[in-house]
C-alpha cells in the first residue's frame, strides 16, 4: 500500500541477529503501519456501529426491560440485530446467496457490480481531493465541482446531438471543463487575493447547489412537461457504455476512474509539474525560493482537482443516472474527502479506499431494504474509520500499538492565514 513497511520494521527491531519471520509479523501487527492502522480503524468502526444498532433495535430494547430475569435474551436479540445488519451489508456489497443463483451467471456478480458502480465517482472525487492535499490545498469543494461537471456534461449530453463515441467524449470533456472552471476559480482567488481555498470552496459549493436549483426551473434545461425539478434526459449516444450485460450496472466510468488514477500517479511521481506541486505542498516558501511560481501552482492544482471532481460528475450523469436532479451529488463530494484521507492522498490507495466506501454504499442499500437498518449507518462507519485514521495516536493508545504517531500523507494543520 505504502512505501516502506520493511525498513520501518527493521529500524524498530533490535540490532543483531535478524528476528524470525513469525516475530517480524508480530512486530508488524503491533506497528502503526498504514495497513495495520486501517484494519484497526475498521474494527473500531464496526464495534461503534454495532453499539448503535443494539441501542436502536426495538426487540433488543424490549428484551432489555426484563434483563435481570433473563439476560441471555437481550444478548441473543442484540447479536441477531447486529449480525443480520452486517451480514446483509456484506451480501449487498460482495456476494449474495439469495439472488446469486436466480438467473444467469451475471446475477451472482451483481453485488460486486453495485460496489464498483458506487466506487467510481468516489475514486474520482477522492483523487480530486487527494491531489489538492498533495499540493497543500484543501479542496472541500468537490461537491460544487461535481455539480458543475454534471451540469456541463449533462447539458452537452441532452442539448447537443452528435454521433456515437464522439458525443460521449465531448460530454466528458465538457464535464472536465466545468469542474475545472469551478475549482480553478478558488485557485485563482487564492493566488490573486489570498482568499483561503477552504472558505471559497465551501461557499462555492452552495453557490453551485443553488445555481443548479435555478437551472432546474429553467426551460431548455428542465424536462418539459414535468412538474419535478429534473433535467432533460441525456442522449443514449452520450452515455458511458455498460461494461457487462444486464443486470450489471457498472459502466465505463470505472475505466475512466482507473485511468485517472494512473494519470495522477504518473503526474505526482514522474512529472515536472507533479514535482512542483508536491514541493509547494511540502513547503511553499522553499518552493518560492527555488523559483517556482506558487500562485500559478495553486491555480493549476485547483483546475486539475476540479477537473477530476468534474469527471465524478460525468460518471454520475453519463453513467449511473440519466438526468440531473438536485440530488446529483448524492453526498459524494463530502464522502470523497474521507476517501482521500483514508487513501492518504496517494492515488492507488485512494482507489482502494474508494472501493471500500463504494462497498459500504452498495451494501447499505441492501441492508436497509432487508433488515430495515437505516443506510445512515454507513455514514457513521465511514466517518469513524477516518476519525481513527486521522488520529493514529488514538488508535495506538486503544489497541496498544507501538511506534510513534505517523501522520504521513497529511500535513499538520495550518490555519486560515496559511
Amino acid at each position, binding site marked *: 500500500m505504502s512505501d516502506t513497511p520493511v525498513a520501518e520494521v527493521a529500524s524498530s527491531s533490535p540490532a543483531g541477529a535478524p528476528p524470525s519471520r513469525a516475530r517480524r509479523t508480530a512486530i508488524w501487527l503491533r506497528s502503526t503501519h498504514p495497513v495495520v492502522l486501517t484494519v484497526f480503524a475498521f474494527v473500531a468502526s464496526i464495534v461503534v456501529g454495532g453499539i448503535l444498532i443494539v441501542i*436502536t433495535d426495538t426487540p433488543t430494547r424490549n428484551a432489555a426491560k426484563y434483563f435481570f430475569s433473563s439476560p441471555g435474551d437481550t444478548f441473543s436479540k442484540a447479536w441477531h440485530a447486529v449480525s443480520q445488519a452486517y451480514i446483509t451489508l456484506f451480501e449487498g456489497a460482495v456476494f449474495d446467496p439469495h439472488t446469486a443463483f436466480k438467473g444467469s451467471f451475471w446475477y451472482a456478480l451483481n453485488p460486486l457490480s453495485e460496489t464498483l458502480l458506487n466506487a467510481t465517482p468516489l475514486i474520482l472525487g477522492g483523487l480530486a481531493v487527494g491531489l489538492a492535499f498533495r499540493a497543500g490545498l484543501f479542496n472541500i469543494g468537490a461537491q460544487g465541482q461535481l455539480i458543475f461537471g454534471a451540469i456541463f456534461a449533462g447539458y452537452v449530453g441532452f442539448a447537443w446531438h452528435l454521433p456515437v463515441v464522439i458525443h460521449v467524449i465531448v460530454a466528458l470533456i465538457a464535464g472536465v471543463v466545468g469542474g475545472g472552471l469551478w475549482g480553478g476559480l478558488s485557485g485563482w482567488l487564492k493566488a490573486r487575493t489570498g482568499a483561503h481555498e477552504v472558505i471559497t470552496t465551501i461557499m462555492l459549493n452552495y453557490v453551485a447547489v443553488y445555481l443548479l436549483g435555478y437551472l432546474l426551473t429553467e426551460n431548455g434545461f428542465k424536462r418539459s412537461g414535468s412538474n419535478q425539478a429534473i433535467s432533460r434526459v441525456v442522449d443514449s449516444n452520450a452515455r458511458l457504455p455498460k461494461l457487462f450485460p444486464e443486470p450489471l450496472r457498472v459502466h465505463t466510468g470505472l475505466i475512466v476512474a482507473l485511468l485517472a488514477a494512473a494519470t495522477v500517479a504518473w503526474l505526482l511521481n514522474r512529472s515536472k509539474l507533479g514535482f512542483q506541486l508536491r514541493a509547494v505542498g511540502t513547503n511553499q516558501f522553499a518552493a518560492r525560493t527555488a523559483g517556482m511560481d506558487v500562485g500559478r501552482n495553486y491555480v493549476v492544482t485547483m483546475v486539475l482537482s476540479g477537473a477530476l471532481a468534474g469527471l465524478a460528475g460525468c460518471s454520475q450523469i453519463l453513467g449511473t443516472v440519466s438526468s440531473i436532479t438536485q440530488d446529483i451529488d448524492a453526498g459524494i463530494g463530502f464522502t470523497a*474527502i474521507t476517501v482521500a484521507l483514508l487513501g492518504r492522498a496517494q492515488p492507488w490507495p485512494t482507489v482502494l479506499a474508494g472501493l471500500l466506501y463504494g462497498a459500504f454504499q452498495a451494501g447499505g442499500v441492501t441492508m436497509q431494504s432487508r433488515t430495515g*437498518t437505516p443506510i445512515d449507518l454507513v455514514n457513521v462507519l465511514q466517518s469513524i474509520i477516518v476519525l481513527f485514521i486521522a488520529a493514529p495516536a488514538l488508535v495506538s493508545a486503544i489497541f496498544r500499538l507501538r511506534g510513534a504517531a505517523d501522520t504521513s500523507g497529511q500535513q499538520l494543520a495550518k490555519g486560515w492565514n496559511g
Partner: protein
Amino acid sequence: MSAVQTAELVETHEVVEVAASKRVRLISGSALVVVGLLCLLGFGLGSHAGYDARFELSPPGARVHVPALVLPARITAIVLGAVVVALGLWRIARGGSRRAMHWIIGVSIVAVVLSFLCWSLTGTKGTSLDLLGLLQQTIFLAVPLILGALAGVLCERSGVINVAIEGQMLAGAFAGALIGTVVHNTGAGIVAALIAGALIGALLAVFAIRYLVNQVVLGVVINVLVLGLTGYVYDALMARDQNTYNTPPGLHAISVPGLSDIPILGPLLFQQNAIVYAMYVLVIVIDVALFRSRWGLRTRAVGEHPRAADTVGIRVRRTRFVNVVVGGLVAGLGGASLTIGSALPFGKNMTNGKGFIALAAVIFGRWSPRGAVGAALLFGFADALQNVLSFIGTPVAIPSQFLAMLPYLATILAVAGLVGRVRAPAADGEPYVGR
C-alpha cells in the same frame, strides 16, 4: 497572501488607526459607485413611475399603532442609489478611516436594500409590504445563525477552526427534539441540546488539541458523523413513532412588560421565546467579555500567539479546550432553536447548511462577535426576503435561488478582500504542541 508574508518578513507592526491606502480606497470606492449606479438605473429607472411603496410597520392588533410608511417608489429608489454613489465618490476622494468605512458599508447596504424593496413593490398596483413581518421573520431565521456564529467566534478566537458548527447545531436540534419529547419538558430538551452540542464540541477539541488532527478535515468528518448518527436514529426510532419520540413541546413567546409596547422595536425584539432572550444575553456577554475580561484577553492571546501566551503562564491547550466546548454549547442552543424554539419535529439534515452560513457570518464579520451578529442578521434578512418576494409580484421575477446564494457570494467577496482585508486570528487552526 504574499502581502501578508512580506509584512511578516520586514516586521512592520500595524498601527492602530492606519489610513487606507490609495489603491484600497479606489477599489472599494469604485465598487460602491458601481453598486450605486446599478441601484439607481436598475431599481430607480427600472421601476414603473407613479407607484407608491407602502411599508406596514405595526401588527394588526398593536396597542400603539404606527402608521404605514408610504414612499414614492421611483424617486426613493433613485435618491437611495444616488446616496450610495455619493458615498463611493467620497470614499475615493477623501478616504476615511476603517471606522468610517464600517459606517459607509452599513448605510450603503440599507440604502440598496430599501431601493430594492421600493422597486419590488412596483410590480402590481396596491401591494404593500409588511416590513415589520419581514424583520420579525429575519430575527426568527437569524437566531440559529447568530448562535452558530457566536460558537464559531468562541472557537476561532482561541485558535481552533470550527467547520463543525453544522454538526453541533444538528446534534443540538436532534437531542432537543428527542429528549424534549421523551421527558415532555422544554427545559430538559434545551439542556439535552446544550449537552449534545458540547459533546460534539468536546469531540472536536480532543481530536484537534490532543491528537493534532487537521481541523478543517476534522470538522468535515464530524459533520458527516453527526449527520449519520442523527439520521440513523431518526430513521430507526423517531420516524417510526413520531408521537413518542419526535413531537417536542415548543417554547412560548414571552412579552417583556413595558418594553414590548414600544412601537416597532417592541413586537420585533421583546415578544420572543426564552432562547432568543438567552441569545441577547450571550451576544452582549461574549462581545464585552472577549475584549474587556481576563478570559477574553487570554482567549485572544491563545488564538493570536500561543507561544507568547504560554510564556506568561496561560495554559494554551486548556483555554482552547474550554472555549471549543463552550462554543459547542452555544451552537447546541442554536440547534435547539430549530426544534424546541419553534415547536417543530426533528428532520433529517434539518440544519441544511445553516452551520456553514454561520461560518460565513463569522468570516464576513471578521471574527468579531459584533460583526458576526451583523452578518448573521444580514444573511437572515436575505433568507426572509426570499419568502416575502415570492408573495409580492416583482416587476421582474427574481429566482429565489439567487437570493439564497447571497450570503455565500458576499463571503467570497469579503475573503477576496473587496471590502477591505479579512484576517483570521493569527494562530487559527494551528495546533499548539507546547515546549
